[in-house]
């Protein structure tokens, strides 16, 4: 298979600034998403995802300008997530230069929105972000449910069934985050990743828990993910994207080097 697996650095953007700290020695302003995106592009990122965590809806316009500026000079696919609730939000992001939008909470509260958006702009632009948490007890068959509000609120929705439903509604890709692993640096929830990847016909991006380069490779080899997303290991310059890609290639994964 010649299609390469993808590495997607994710930038959390609050009010137009990258948060969670970025520590590149040669970057003038590490909080500037345009500079950070440019750096990731130069390192060979296959795509870039922006997650807008701006709390106030009044300040949401700032992410539009960020996307515009990045799209003017970075010529790889860009995805924007966070606060996408209406068709108007979707169109505004695409017009600003995003190639895909990630819909998360809005899909849980109104699944029809996913159908409406994919019919309007095409499935290839619609990523459904799924935040899942393990709910089965030790020894039981593993089961995961969808959680909202940063993993605090259970919805009772089975993660695998939900992923299948979202693809049915027109999702062109699934961004799967394990809320159990997010921020832990102990690696992806591989059984979850594999279960979702096996269940759906569209590409799956694994997210949540990456602490080293083997975790990225495991996500593809054992989790069967089509792409891997990570934030902190790249932000803190623990590893460059080039190193990550080389490591994955060394483990036998098809990569764009």
């Amino acid at each position, binding site marked *: 298979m010649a299609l390469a697996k993808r590495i997607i650095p994710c930038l959390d953007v609050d009010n137009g600034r990258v948060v969670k700290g970025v520590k590149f020695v040669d970057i003038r302003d590490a909080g500037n998403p345009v500079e950070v995106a440019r750096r990731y592009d130069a390192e060979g990122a296959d795509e870039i995802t922006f997650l807008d965590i701006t709390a106030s809806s009044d300040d949401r316009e700032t992410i539009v300008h960020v996307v515009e500026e990045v799209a003017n000079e970075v010529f790889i696919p860009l995805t924007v997530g966070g606060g996408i609730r209406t068709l108007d939000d979707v169109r505004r992001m695409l017009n600003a230069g995003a190639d895909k939008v990630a819909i998360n909470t809005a899909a849980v509260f109104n699944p029809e929105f996913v159908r409406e958006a994919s019919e309007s702009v095409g499935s290839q*632009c619609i990523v459904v972000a799924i935040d899942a948490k393990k709910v089965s007890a030790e020894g039981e068959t593993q089961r995961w449910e969808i959680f909202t509000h940063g993993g605090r609120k259970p919805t009772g929705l089975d993660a695998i069934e939900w992923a299948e439903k979202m693809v049915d509604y027109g999702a062109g890709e699934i961004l799967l985050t394990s809320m159990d692993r997010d921020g832990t640096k102990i690696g992806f929830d591989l059984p979850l990743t594999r279960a979702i990847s096996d269940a759906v016909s569209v590409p799956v991006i694994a997210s949540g828990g990456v602490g080293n380069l083997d975790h990225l490779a495991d996500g593809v080899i054992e989790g069967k993910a089509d792409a891997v997303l990570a934030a902190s290991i790249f932000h803190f310059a623990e590893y460059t994207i080039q190193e990550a890609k080389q490591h994955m290639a060394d483990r036998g994964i098809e990569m764009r080097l």
Partner: protein
Amino acid sequence: MSTTIAVVDYGMGNLRSVSKALEHVAADDQKIIVSSDAAEIANAERVVFPGQGAARDCMKHLKDLQLEDVVLQAAHEKPFLGICMGMQVLMAHSEENQGVSCMNLYAGEVRAFADEKLQSQMQSLKIPHMGWNKVSHKQDHPLWHEIQEDSRFYFVHSYYVDPEDETLVAGTTEYGIEFVSAIARDNVFAAQFHPEKSAQDGLQLLKNFCCWNGQK
């Protein structure tokens, strides 16, 4: 002679990336316009015909905006670059949306990967074909200038072109099957991948287009 490059805007997807990427590589005296105006497109020196979405909508918008003739005309007489759906609708017919008649510049069919998936053992084949894949050159063409054999470009699509005339094929890619990822004849070059999203090699291809005289 006008040095305008017209990006045809017929309501099929966001053209900002295409025009920004062209601006990035065009010569100083070349002007990029995004246009749905037939006269503007007819007067341009070169035409880029992009598009994403579904085949039926694509053909419907072209007809509603009365742009089909001017696009075909451009494909007959000036440097012309089709991208993604803008490549597919150059064929005679697409399997998408229960069958759609297309522009019929070239004989051939646009086929679904899903059928290949059913017919092959490639049960794990994800659709859309999304991501960076290798393109093997099948013609020595000016648009491949300074682009190495098997360079990777960014794809996102569920259908692929299957031209009747094999001499049209300018590039192929493997995804379960070997499919046609670029075609070229005379003043026309068309690609299934997105050069505007394919980093350096994509920009190089667009740069090659900007200075191409429309001949091999």
